[in-house]
Structure formats: structure tokens, C-alpha cells
């Protein structure tokens, strides 16, 4: 009695393992994402930025308490004083920082959502609160769907989505390219419109890439020869040019494969067509019922539909 059941048990274990193993190698072409260069984004040139933070205040002014984020109130609103945020937060979508290595070597950097071509936050959100607009490529957030699980924060390689820790009714806050505010009214993001030195260029991804390549070509020595975001995590719509190594500016060194492709590949292999769970359930039912009947035969009593309806020995 013991041996066949043990063998069956290991068979099931093996099948599960095999499915998982297959997940590592199996790639279907349809799942590979393609970069869409007609989507919109921004090119930030750190060598042009003068660190005036006009983009930050423009962002807060335009997106403060309406649009898609009805809850955000900039913290300076109450007393009307400018208070410079230290980091992106539940009330700050974009931020300028200065990285100073020595008196001669320094650079500003602007943080905001990278609007990935294959965004991790969209891939992990269980209730589709994070979405990527197919046409514009904008990664947007819907607070009416969000359950506040913060998986998007775990998933984002750039630590962009921010949570309102101090609120009883919190939400996630991140840049949505002024989708419902400045972009709707004026066709350009507030930060790009405001920048007095043209450090932020707004446009289609292909135009931004052309411009970035042109600047790299025409100004040898001025830049690190790399467009950050062109290939990183499958490509982002927010692109960077800089004179300083990007990782020194807090932009992590990342692989070209989008993390979401790796995780989805494994998840899809296990749950393809929901076959594996159904197969597992039916196999287990078969084994369990067989075992139960065997037990009854050897007992020689207590049949499954007994007169008292005791229902066998499963309880």
C-alpha cells in the first residue's frame, strides 16, 4: 500500500518541478515586447540643467490638487513658503538633486517616472491600477482601483512610485506626464514647458533619441557616451544625457532585459491556460478517492453511502 502512493506523490512533485524548470528556458516570441518609439517622453540633459528647480514648483503648481491625483497637497501650501523636498514622496513627483564629487566635478539630476516600455509596476499590480497607455506610452495610476499593496514600489527598479505614509486615506503618487493637466491643456508637460535653459525636451521617443544622438555626436567630450534609458530595462521613455557616470547620479546600472519579462515568463509557464492547476487538482482527486476506497475495502465496513450517510472515512 505504501509504495505506490509514495511513487505517486513524487510523480506529482516531479511534474511541478518540471513545470518550474521549463519556466527558465521556455520563451514564446509573442511575449517579447517591442519598443514603440512613437510614444511620448522626455529627454533630460544634465549638462544643461542649472538646478533652479523651476520644474519642481511648476509640477506642484499644475498637479497639486486636481487631475488624476485628487489628494496631493504640496506641503508648502499651508503657509505659502517654499520648502524644498529632500526626495520624491507622496507629495513630490519630480525632484532636482545635486551630486557633487569635487569642486570641479558635479552634476544636477532630475528624478521622475521613467515611463518604461515594459513597466514592472504595471506587470505586478494585481488590480490593474497601474496601466500603460498603448498610444502615448504613459504609465498612469488609478487611485480608484488601487488597494495600496505597494507591490509597485517593490517592483520598480528606479524606486519611483511613492506612498502617502502619513495619511489615513493614502495613495500612490508618481509622474503621469501631466496627462490630465498641462499635457491636456497645452500639449507639453509642465516641467518641460517651464525649464528656462531647455534642459528638458518633450516629444516622441524617436525624436528624443535623434536629438540625444545628435548632441552626443556634436559635442565630443561633453557627455558620457551613453543615452540612459535607451536600452535599460527594455527601454524607457524618460531619457538622460549626462557628463557624469549615471550610477553616480543615483540612476542604477541595469540590464537590457525588463525584469517583468523574466517574472512573467515563469508565471506564464506555470499557469499557461490554467492547465497545470486543473491537472494537479484532478490527479490529486483521483489519488485521494482511490485511497479512500482502498481504506474502506480493507475496513470491510462503513461504505461511502452507508445507511447513516456517514460518508466514509474522510472525516
Amino acid at each position, binding site marked *: 500500500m505504501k509504495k505506490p502512493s509514495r511513487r505517486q506523490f513524487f510523480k506529482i512533485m516531479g511534474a511541478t518541478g518540471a513545470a518550474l524548470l521549463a519556466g527558465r528556458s521556455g520563451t514564446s516570441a509573442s511575449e517579447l515586447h517591442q519598443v514603440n518609439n512613437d510614444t511620448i517622453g522626455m529627454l533630460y540633459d544634465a549638462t544643461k540643467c542649472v538646478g533652479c528647480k523651476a520644474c519642481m514648483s511648476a509640477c506642484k503648481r499644475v498637479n497639486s490638487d486636481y487631475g488624476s491625483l485628487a489628494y496631493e497637497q504640496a506641503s508648502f501650501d499651508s503657509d505659502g513658503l517654499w520648502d524644498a523636498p529632500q526626495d520624491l514622496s507622496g507629495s513630490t513627483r519630480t525632484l532636482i538633486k545635486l551630486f557633487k564629487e569635487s569642486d570641479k566635478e558635479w552634476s544636477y539630476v532630475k528624478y521622475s517616472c521613467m515611463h518604461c516600455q515594459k513597466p514592472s509596476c504595471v506587470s505586478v499590480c494585481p488590480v490593474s491600477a497601474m496601466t500603460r497607455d498603448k498610444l502615448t506610452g504613459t504609465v498612469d495610476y488609478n487611485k480608484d482601483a488601487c488597494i495600496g499593496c505597494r507591490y509597485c514600489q*517593490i517592483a520598480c527598479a528606479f524606486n519611483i512610485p511613492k506612498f502617502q505614509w502619513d495619511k489615513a486615506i493614502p495613495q500612490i503618487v508618481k509622474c503621469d506626464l501631466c496627462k490630465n493637466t498641462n499635457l491636456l491643456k497645452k500639449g507639453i508637460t509642465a516641467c518641460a514647458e517651464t525649464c528656462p535653459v531647455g534642459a528638458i525636451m518633450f516629444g516622441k521617443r524617436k525624436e528624443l533619441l535623434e536629438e540625444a544622438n545628435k548632441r552626443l555626436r556634436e559635442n565630443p567630450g561633453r557627455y558620457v557616451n551613453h543615452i540612459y534609458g535607451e536600452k535599460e530595462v527594455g527601454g524607457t521613455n524618460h531619457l538622460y544625457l549626462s557628463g557624469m557616470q549615471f550610477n553616480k547620479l543615483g540612476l542604477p546600472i541595469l540590464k537590457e532585459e525588463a525584469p517583468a519579462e523574466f517574472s512573467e515568463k515563469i508565471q506564464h509557464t506555470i499557469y499557461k491556460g490554467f492547465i497545470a492547476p486543473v491537472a*494537479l487538482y484532478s490527479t490529486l482527486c483521483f489519488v485521494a478517492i482511490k485511497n479512500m476506497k482502498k481504506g474502506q475495502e480493507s475496513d470491510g465496513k462503513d461504505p461511502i453511502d452507508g445507511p447513516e450517510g456517514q460518508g466514509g472515512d474522510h472525516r
Partner: protein
Amino acid sequence: MSHDEYQKHDAKILTPSFIVLLTLTLIGFALVAVRFIKGIGAVTNMSDGYPWGIWITYDVATGTAIACGGYAMAILIYIRNHMHYHPMIRSAILTSMFGYGLAGFSVMVDVGRPWNAYNFFIPSKWQLNSAMFEVALCVMAYTTVLLMEFLPAVLTTLEKTEWKTLQLLLDMLYSRMGMKRPERIGDRLDKVKDLAAWAKPRLDKVLIFIIVLGITLPTMHQSSLGSLLLIASTKLHPLWHTGFLPLLFLINCMFIGYSIAILESVISCYAFKRPFETKELSGMARIIPWLTVIWLSVVVGDLAWRGQLGAAVSFDFYSRFFLLEFCLVAGGSLLMFSGKKRESIRWLFVSAALIVLGGALYRFNVYLIGFNPGKGWHYFPALAELLITVGIVAFEILGYQVIVKILPVLPKLHTRKQLDSELGLAEKA
């Protein structure tokens, strides 16, 4: 075998440990109220860098593994056909029910916008790429399954009850109010009894399909608990970030499940002054080392394949936690391989405790210790945050303590003797 193999534990409910646990529970729940009034930041040290703290790491990721006793026992009994363990399953299911139910409760405390959770039931909002979606649905379904698996214990009691306590209480209430107790209350109580008697055999007939569902669902979501961290390829340390995370979490929950079933039995026999179930436990302990050996070989093989063996023995911060986790599991398994040590309750307890600790540390390593969102972020749980977790655990133990005293959950003592002789026969054969 039938409902008669279980019995109520006859003892007082109001014990000193009851008072202590109740106090801890009340403190925890008061702090939960603070969290809902003032926001999550008011009671926790979680940050945008560490958006998942001790609540997700312990209450959900580790707590559900510790609640896998019911899952592991169900595999042992119904799939591997060891029916003689059947008397032990009800207490295992009870702890699983508390573990999972309270993990679900913790999630509702942890998420920022719980009122939107109905979106899980709206197909247009489903996001099938998300491991979180799978975990959430499976955990909800499994908690329901556990409730149904436990229902026979409730129905048997309802069927046979004479409502003594309730009758007394009602009499007291009505006499206080100076009224006579109306007849229809008695009729209604009888109706409940009839309903229970009607439902029980019907539930019994379909129960095996529910039980098998109770094996399928944890297989799915325990592996998905590992899948949750697949996406964090840049944040989770390479010692733990691997495509095998789902498989490792699945095997991990199985050996934790069997080990915790041993611990629970030893502790409850000790606390309730019942004879130890040494024979069943040592039989169960035979399975554990095989599971841990598979797990450890996947861990080592995968590290070797990804060229991370050097990192594993570099003795830096991460390596130390990895080695600790590894040694706890390996040490506990080595003890359990020895047949003699398996016969001793003390060694069974020690080795099972080592394995549970090691297995739980693995989950902590994946969710918290090996997770590094970048420079400048630190996390250590706040006192209030810890007290909420403590309150939830206290509530689990409290609930178990009370329920085994009012419902037939623990194995009946005289059947245990029969069981021992059956086991003896089986071993001779």
C-alpha cells in the same frame, strides 16, 4: 473512522495564559485602530524603500508557511494514504485556519486602500501577470476551504449540544429583566440542531473534493509567494534571487508544515497535560529530511549554476544570514535522519524547531534581509508595528486554546491507544 476520533479538551477556559494572551491581543488591536486613524506611517517604520515590512514578511509570507500544517497533513493522509494520522488533522486544520485567516487580516491592515479590495472580484480589473493577484485569490479561497474543512467539528457539536451554557445565560438575562423566557427560543435552537444534523452528512459526501482543493490551493499560492519577489531582480540579493524561487517556496512550506505539526502536537500535549504522540510524530519526522535534502540541493545547485557559491561563503552580512538559514535547516534534518533521535520527543522537538526556524529565516531573507532598495534606505520594525504582529500571533494561540476546549478537535485518547497498536502492526508488516 468517523467523527468519534476527536474529543473536547475538558479544562477551564479562563487560565492565566488566557489573560496574558488576551492583553497582548487587545494591545495589538488598539494599535490597529491607531493605524486606521492616523495612517500606516504613524505605527510603522516602513518607507518608500522598504514598502513591505514585518507584517508582510512575518504575518503573510512566513505565517502562512507556519500555517501549512493542515496542508502537509492532508497530503500525508489523503494522498500518501496514511489514514492512521487522521485523528491529528483537525488540530492541524484549526491552526491553519487561524494562520491563514489572520494573514488575510494582516493584509487588510497592511494595504493602504483596503476598501478597493472588491476589485479582485471584478474581471475587468484582473491582472493575470501579477503573482500578487494569484496569491490574493488563492489565499481567500483557501481560507474558505479551511473553514469548510473545520465545519464538521462545529456541526457535530451543534448536533449534540444541549445548549447548557446558552440556556443558563438566557435564564439569567430574562430573570434579570423580570420576564419569562418565551418558548420559541427553544424551538429555534432545535431548528439549528436539525439544520446541523441535516448538513453534516451532505458536507461529508463532498468533503473529499474540498480537501483536495485544500491541497491544490496552497501548492499554487505558496509557490507564488516565491514568485512575488522574481520581479525585484535589482533589489533582492543574488543569493536569493533565482528563477527557482517558486519551487523553493513550495518545498519550504512543506517541510515547515510537517515540522510545525510536530511542534504543535508536542506543545499542546505538554500544555494540556496529554500523553505525547511520539509514534505518529516520529513517523511524520521520517518525511521531513527528504524534503529538506531536495530543498538544500536545489539551493546549492542553483547557486553553483549561477556562480554565486563564492558569495555564499564570503561571510559578509548577506552570506552570514544565508549560512545561518542553511545550517539551521541542514542541522535539523541531520538530527531527524537518525532513527533513534526520532524516537525521543525532546530531539523531535529540537530538530523540528531548528527546521522551522531555518525555513522561516529563508522567507525573512527573501522578503526583508536580502532586500536592498539602494543607498540610504534602512528598515527595522517600529515597536507599535511589532506589537501589532505580536497581538495577531497572541490571538491565534488564544483562539486555538479556547476552541479545543469547546469543540472536538484533539485526537481522542482511547483511539490513540488503538492507533499505537495499529502502527505497531503496520511496522511489523
